């Protein structure tokens, strides 16, 4: 047993199980159940970090992670809140943002320079002369930031995610949360509890005070009551408990997010949890409102809960000699408990003049503990840790100094309303409790327990039951009457207790910190207000208060109270500052979760990889772009022009459209007259958007009466059904679309030897006469594999596009390779196709077009049929309006002058202005010269026009091309028709 208190039932440590860890390169030991910070505390460490701006020493303050006082580097992960991070064997702990050590930080002199750094001082300094700023900025960057992250850091661990649905989600596993869960679960509902600590019990769990949970129940300790409720919750199968789970986000329609820290037995280190609930109960209880006085964050100053839980949960006496400066009965209770555990209580200063629980007063008297009512701590002294405290009466008239090594300081309670505000609930200042309480709640969200201002244990529990039943009512599983009955019983119990209003001790506030993380003092707030920043939200921006790693945890409640007090504003104008998610800083790795990358493979994926294909992700697909490291694809291209090759075109969109109104739908979306589509033939056409801009092109054939098959580009396949249905949504037409994209693999077998290869594996006559250009055939390979074949000429050679059922694709691929062996058939990839089709001036949308390019601009006006006005073809109106505009971009073909090389894709066409740009240009192996296509201003599109080409990095040196007729290769098209 290490030197810990060991007799309390509330302990969560196992003093016999030592856990070793490294701190500042030395080995230390904590015990099982310790957090990193409690283990360090047990080893005598009191300064955990230095503050961001002034490098002030910082110690244990809250134990619940509201501030970054205990942010350290743990296992190379920066900014870890050690106070609620469980200690694990072998952890390596380092200090952050210090020069030297946290104990002896050479930067601590800055603390004395605060007079130079009033609120917003950056804005008024370091810019005169201008040359100073870049130098100053470098220094600011170095000084700013807490932890260090290496650019090659690899985050270890397993991060998981789940997306449960539930009826009721309860945030907070304290007494009211558990009561709510039990009430809702007993109504047969599915319930989830999220609790930030590793165990249920909340505000009861660590306290040994006695209490009677009901008329018919005997007295028991709050701790025992917590255990009893825990058992009740766990006995109900329809309650799902997530402990060690912080709630971080709340969104419309009761979507709640959080993350859970994995236990030893879990497969995950952390997991992201996204809950969809019908109803939500917020039972987050309170944290403490920091008491503001000079050096109120000196190591040795801590909150009540921190001091009490150090002892009761972790078996650590927080100090030797303590002074309490508090404003809530919990402070008195804690003083009694800690005193009985051996802490010397020098004195208790209570902000309140009256209103204390008489029982507690009696006990203090019995124990001879001095209580000064109406007194408060004003200044903690001691350079690195507390040596003594100056106290004064609230009016500042009387004062005294008491030596001590611990100041337990707390202005009172403050409800954890973050979940309410981020769920779009509205808060209102309540003068009785001094709290911001929920005023307007979104639908199906309830607050309970201490969020109602309640303090009495039985009231808290009863309110929990009510909230559980209200949630059940949201799910239509409870009667209003039943809720009414319990509400009546709550009325007979103690209501909200009066809270303290005091924000700061009667001091000037130069070293009174309202925000620890950003080192913002009371004085800074005054400075901001005087500059005209009169609303808390603006003050936050100007002084940075509440924008540090702990966000509003420390200043959230005090800032608006202080601003109102300083401006002498009435209560009604006290408005809380905005709370934003995540309510607890959350690792990116946790949010990212499993992050499965979902991409599609074609049926030939594996074979092409085995053949050396170099793949690219294109939209949702992976495609082979090259088949060698020669990115000009010379061999692939030459092989197609002279021999035969295979391209995987499976990613093309493929659709069947059928039904009595199928033709009408096609007429609506395609610019051509689709009534001319025939069986056995392919028709090429395009789709435009309402601006007349081309969005897709493909081929269509007729399969039978009211039955068509068409292809789309790879990128549009996913939107085709949506598009056609959108543009016919008012028409009540009777047609049906089936997306067959994935059901067929597509091979483009191309090159002068294509027919010879194909003939070897099919039984029918595929001579040019029997199966001509632009024709469509259905046949079986080896009497077995049904194939849809089209003779198209995208690459400008004899080619067959074979649509083969995906499961058979491997077989067909192997047959073609086998059949092509004697010709040395080769694969070709997307880039080779790109060059081949460019030589033919066949456009690729997105390459020879941009968002604003219409059908006419790219020279596809021949596709547009103007005689079908009744069809209301998408884009037709815009095309007829725009065709008079001669200044529009036009697609032209060009060759380079003097046999020059091809310009980069994306080069500009210029004179004194930009007049267009190069879409695709290559040094053509087929033509032995550089050719390309460009979009240019209309007046430049005439054949013979000289194009002045401006490339990136050309240093002003232009190269020149000339507009020529398109296409460049085989203008008669004889090769693809052979």
């Amino acid at each position, binding site marked *: 047993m290490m030197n810990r208190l060991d007799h309390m039932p509330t302990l969560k440590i196992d003093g016999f199980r030592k856990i070793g860890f490294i701190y500042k390169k030395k080995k230390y030991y904590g015990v099982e159940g310790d957090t990193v910070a409690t283990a360090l505390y047990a080893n005598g460490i009191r300064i955990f970090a230095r503050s961001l701006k002034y490098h002030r020493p910082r110690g244990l303050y809250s134990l619940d992670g509201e501030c970054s006082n205990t942010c350290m580097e743990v296992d190379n*992960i*920066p900014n870890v809140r050690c106070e609620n991070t469980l200690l694990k064997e072998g952890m390596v702990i380092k200090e952050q943002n210090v020069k030297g050590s946290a104990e002896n930080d050479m930067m601590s002199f800055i603390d004395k320079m605060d007079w130079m750094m009033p609120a917003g001082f*950056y804005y*008024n300094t370091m*810019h*005169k002369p*201008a040359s100073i700023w870049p130098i100053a900025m470098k220094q600011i*960057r*170095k000084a*700013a*930031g807490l*932890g*260090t*992250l290496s*650019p*090659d*850091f690899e985050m270890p661990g397993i991060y998981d995610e789940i997306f449960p649905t539930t009826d009721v989600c309860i945030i907070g596993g304290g007494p009211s949360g558990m009561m709510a869960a039990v009430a809702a679960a007993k109504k047969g509902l599915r319930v989830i509890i999220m609790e930030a600590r590793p165990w249920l019990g909340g505000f009861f769990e660590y306290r040994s005070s006695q209490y009677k949970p009901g008329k018919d129940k005997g007295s028991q300790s709050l701790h025992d009551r917590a255990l009893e409720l825990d058992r009740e919750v766990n006995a109900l199968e329809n309650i799902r408990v997530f402990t060690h789970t912080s709630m971080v*986000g709340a969104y*419309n329609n009761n979507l709640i997010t959080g993350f859970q820290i994995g236990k030893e037995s879990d497969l995950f280190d952390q997991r992201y949890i*996204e809950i969809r609930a019908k109803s939500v109960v917020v039972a987050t209880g309170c944290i403490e409102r920091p008491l503001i006085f000079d050096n109120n964050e000196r190591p040795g100053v801590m909150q009540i809960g921190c001091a009490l839980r150090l002892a009761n949960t972790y078996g650590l006496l927080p100090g030797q000699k303590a002074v309490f400066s508090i404003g809530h009965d919990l402070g008195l209770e804690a003083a009694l408990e800690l005193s009985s555990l051996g802490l010397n209580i020098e004195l208790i200063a209570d902000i309140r003049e009256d209103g204390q629980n008489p029982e507690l007063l009696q006990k203090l008297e019995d124990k001879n503990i001095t209580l000064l009512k109406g007194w408060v701590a004003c200044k903690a002294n001691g350079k690195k840790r507390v040596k003594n405290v100056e106290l004064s009466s609230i009016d500042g008239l009387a004062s005294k100094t008491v030596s001590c090594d611990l100041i337990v300081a707390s202005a009172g309670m403050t409800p954890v309303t973050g979940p309410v505000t981020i769920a779009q609930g509205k808060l209102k200042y309540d003068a009785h409790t001094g709290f911001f309480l929920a005023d307007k709640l979104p639908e199906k969200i309830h607050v309970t327990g201490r969020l109602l201002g309640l303090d009495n244990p039985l009231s808290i529990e009863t309110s929990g039951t009510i909230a559980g039943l209200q949630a059940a009512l949201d799910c239509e599983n409870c009667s209003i009457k039943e809720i009414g009955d319990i509400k009546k019983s709550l009325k007979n119990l103690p209501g909200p207790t009066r809270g303290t209003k005091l924000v700061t001790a009667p001091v000037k506030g130069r070293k009174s910190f309202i925000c620890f993380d950003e080192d913002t003092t009371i004085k800074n707030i005054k*400075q901001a207000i*005087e*500059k*005209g*920043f009169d609303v808390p939200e*603006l003050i936050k*921006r*100007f002084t940075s208060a509440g924008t540090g790693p702990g966000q509003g945890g420390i200043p959230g409640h005090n800032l608006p109270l202080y601003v109102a007090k300083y401006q002498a504003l009435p209560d009604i104008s006290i408005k809380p500052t905005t709370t*934003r*998610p*995540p309510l607890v*800083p959350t*690792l*990116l*790795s946790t*949010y*990212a*979760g499993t992050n499965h*990358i979902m*991409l599609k493979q074609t049926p030939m994926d594996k074979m092409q990889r085995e053949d050396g294909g170099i793949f*690219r*992700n*294109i939209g949702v697909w992976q495609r082979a772009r090259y088949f060698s490291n020669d990115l000009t694809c010379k061999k692939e291209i030459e092989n197609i022009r002279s021999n035969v090759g295979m391209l995987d075109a499976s990613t093309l969109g493929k659709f069947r459209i059928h039904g009595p109104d199928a033709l009408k739908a096609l007429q609506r979306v395609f610019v051509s007259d689709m009534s001319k589509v025939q069986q056995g033939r392919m028709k090429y056409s395009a789709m435009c*958007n309402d*601006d007349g*801009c081309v969005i897709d092109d493909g081929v269509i054939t007729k399969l039978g009466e009211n039955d068509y098959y068409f292809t789309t580009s790879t990128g549009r396949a996913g939107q085709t059904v949506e598009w056609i249905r959108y543009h016919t949504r008012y028409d009540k037409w009777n047609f049906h679309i089936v997306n067959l994209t994935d059901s067929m693999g597509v091979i483009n077998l191309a090159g002068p030897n294509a027919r010879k290869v194909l003939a070897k594996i099919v039984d029918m006559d595929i001579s040019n006469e029997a199966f001509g250009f632009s024709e469509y055939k259905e046949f079986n390979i080896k009497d077995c594999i049904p194939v849809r074949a089209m003779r198209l000429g995208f690459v400008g050679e004899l080619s067959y596009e074979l649509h083969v059922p995906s499961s058979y694709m491997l077989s067909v691929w192997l047959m073609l390779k086998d059949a092509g062996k004697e010709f040395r058939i080769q694969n070709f990839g997307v880039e080779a196709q790109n060059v081949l089709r460019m030589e033919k001036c066949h456009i690729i949308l997105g390459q020879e077009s941009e*968002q*604003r390019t219409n059908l006419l601009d790219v020279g596809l006006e021949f596709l547009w049929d103007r005689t079908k006005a009744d069809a209301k073809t998408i884009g037709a109106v*815009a095309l007829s309006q725009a065709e008079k*505009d001669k200044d529009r971009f036009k697609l032209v073909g060009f060759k380079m002058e003097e046999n020059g090389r091809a310009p*980069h894709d*994306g*080069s*500009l066409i210029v004179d004194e202005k*930009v007049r267009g*740009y190069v879409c695709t240009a290559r040094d053509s192996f087929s033509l032995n010269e550089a050719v390309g296509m460009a979009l240019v201003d209309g007046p430049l599109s005439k054949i013979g026009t000289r194009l002045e080409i*401006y*490339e*990136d*990095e050309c240093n002003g040196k232009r190269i020149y091309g000339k507009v020529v007729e398109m296409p460049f290769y085989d203008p008669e098209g004889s090769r693809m028709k052979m």
Partner: protein
Amino acid sequence: MIFKSKPLWGEKTKLKSSYDVVIIGGGLHSLATAYYLAKEHGITDIAIIEKNYIGFGGAGRNTAIVRANQRTQHNVPLYKEALDLWPVLTKELDYNLMFNNCGNLNLMHSEAAMKAARMTIATAQFHGVESHLIDAKEAKELVPALNISENITFPIHGAMFHPPGGIVRHDAVVWGLAKGAAKNGVEIHQHTEALGIETKNNKVCSVTTSEGKINTRQVLISAGGYSAALIHDMLGIKLPISVLTIQAMVTQPLKPLLDHVVSSGAYHCYANQTLKGEVATGAHMDPWPNYTTLNTAHYIKHQAEALSEFLPCLRGVRFMRIWGGLADMTPDMAPIMDGNNQVEGFFMDCGWGYFGFKSCSAVGKYMAQFMATDQCPDIFKPFALKRYEEHRLMGETAALVNYTPDN
């Protein structure tokens, strides 16, 4: 004390019954326009009407990124001038706008994107703006945290590197311009809501506000994301705008890690490190119109997934705060600046989407010239509303945008 405690943008005054110019919206474009009207054109009888407080909207919620590497020749000169104005304004306003001229690195994830980048780079270079195409290795030298391996959703092929860009402290610009405008006599009326614009014979004659009616012959609506709704409600003019919520977030502060602004179209994400050391990142817009400025669970997760892939070391840091602002998007990702067109004396400056911050200084300057002279400056002419019915979209984006049904 070296710092006098005087309200930065003047003492509160009572709204008068008449001004030469009324500007609706207390954001950056309004403040800049007022500043230049007063400073360069001697028009000082100006009321800025702001429903909340200055900088409440986009001015306080933006990326803080500045750059001049847009796609078209209409846009580049405007943004270039805006970029050049930051040091000038710092001096003029005697307010440190904290221009961190760290350069922008726009990642490219495919051959097609590299080609598109070349065009943008050539356009920049043609207009005298520095911008270069670099390969993945060079990008990694600039940003060692980049993951240039192949096994991510969008492997990095290279980047467009734009050294003159960077980040500017956005709040400082708001307060600095407010200070400058107020010093020149402009009145800033916060917590005052504009309720209507009255016209007579198709000429502006007055503006009704929650604090009373103002007679005026010129009114500018530059109210960021709220502009389109105000313009429709007050004057019945419909605009080709979709108002979306755009989100951003910051991590806990770190020692220097990212020395440049990094952005990626494919991941739809940017990341840069603020002077405070936080990694600021964002860019997602839920593609349906709304005025909520709410953040989403969907997005913070998506953002973490994206950063996990291309800046994987960031898996070890924590998100600290997420927020949303409004982006008024047009179909061609370019703004609408128009005046004396639909109604005489009515000016609009809207449709800025998420580019409003980086342009504010230059737009303020030319909008002031427009209003002072009643002559549309040449640089604004391509941005008139009429371009949509003339089928002349701007070409600022190559791909179709997907928040309209047109996708």
